[in-house]
């Protein structure tokens, strides 16, 4: 019996470790389990700010917090599927999600609408707020998505910079913005207010990290943001319509 004791201890710990891993895995997936796509799932209303759409547990709070108005949208207003992303331009996973969403937009052209909400994680990401301000300032000149794309596509370049603002100004010049207005707007109250309102909406909807994506008001689990899984979710949502 004494000879078997160490092996018994090792076996017991192995069993406990496997059970704990399975339990954690299960709780991790049930915490953000994807809702079944059903015809009963109401969509975010096509136009405007998406204020009446979310059907999560935070519905009331989300309805109260409409976010920046009008929101930055891409795609037809009456698209059956709306993806609302809460993103941080300096967050690497958001940068990885960017081409995925672009691909989805191409594949489901005309049937999908994207909404981008600012959720800069300060102080984790030192340039995140400046990047959000730059994107919003570009938005005031009608070039939000151009700046949005440049920021994500060149994330690694400005992420390592000591001062990212000259780089953002170079992007602004590149997309043809009035640089004086861009500078003034970047530090202006309108831009600050938009970021604040988007953040407020995010908090009301239970967003604690980025990227967080809502599909027709329901949170998409992070692991489902991989191209194949997201494609399947969108397709299921379209089939349910």
């Amino acid at each position, binding site marked *: 019996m004494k000879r078997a004791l160490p092996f018994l201890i090792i076996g017991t*710990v192995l069993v406990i470790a496997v059970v704990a891993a399975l339990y954690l895995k299960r709780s991790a997936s049930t915490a953000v389990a994807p809702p079944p796509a059903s015809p009963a799932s109401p969509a975010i209303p096509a136009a405007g700010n998406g204020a009446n759409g979310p059907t999560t547990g935070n519905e009331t709070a989300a309805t109260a917090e409409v976010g920046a108005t009008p929101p930055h949208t891409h795609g037809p207003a009456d698209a059956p599927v709306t993806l609302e992303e809460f993103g941080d331009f300096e967050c690497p996973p958001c940068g990885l999600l960017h081409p995925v969403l672009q691909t989805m937009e191409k594949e489901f052209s005309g049937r999908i609408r994207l909404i981008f909400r600012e959720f800069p994680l300060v102080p984790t990401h030192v340039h995140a707020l400046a990047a959000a301000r730059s994107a919003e300032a570009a938005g005031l000149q009608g070039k939000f998505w151009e700046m949005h794309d440049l920021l994500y596509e060149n994330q690694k370049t400005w992420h390592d910079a000591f001062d990212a603002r000259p780089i953002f100004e170079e992007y602004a010049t590149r997309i043809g913005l009035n640089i004086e207005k861009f500078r003034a707007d970047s530090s202006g109250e309108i831009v600050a207010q938009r970021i604040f309102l988007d953040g407020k909406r995010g908090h009301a909807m239970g967003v*604690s990290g980025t990227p967080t994506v809502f599909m027709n008001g329901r949170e998409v689990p*992070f692991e489902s943001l991989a191209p194949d899984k997201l494609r399947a979710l969108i397709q299921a949502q379209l089939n349910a319509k």
Partner: protein
Amino acid sequence: MTNPPDTSQPIQSRRRTLLYALAALVSLIGLADAIYLTIEHLSGRSVRCTIVSGCSEVLSSEYATVRGIPLAMIGAAAYFAVFSLAVLAAYSYRWAAKSLTVIVGLMFITTLWLIYLQAFVIKHFCQFCLLSAFVTFILTVLIVISLRRN
């Protein structure tokens, strides 16, 4: 004239047993940490950026996986190996004690490399990775002490 009985041997043996038992207990902390990190990695929760964690940068980096296998999962296997070998070494299996020294040595070198990556390449620290590094340092100290006693 007879030599006095050597009483130091059983005491040293008992101390070694205690050191290995302690190493087994400490490795359990590393095992729990690595399992948690593996689940977080696989579910994608820690890979998401949050206000308090640098784990998203670390876990979404190219260094977080080895040929598609999460590094945390390899860490969990390593900690389980350390636990098993430490238990066997505490029960006087000599080969287990030798294997334990080798595996902890490898883990120590790997840990130094991972800390370098976090500090100078990724430029973010993940608190769970730092806990794992701390556990490996403690294990290294325990093994070095046990070697000195040998």
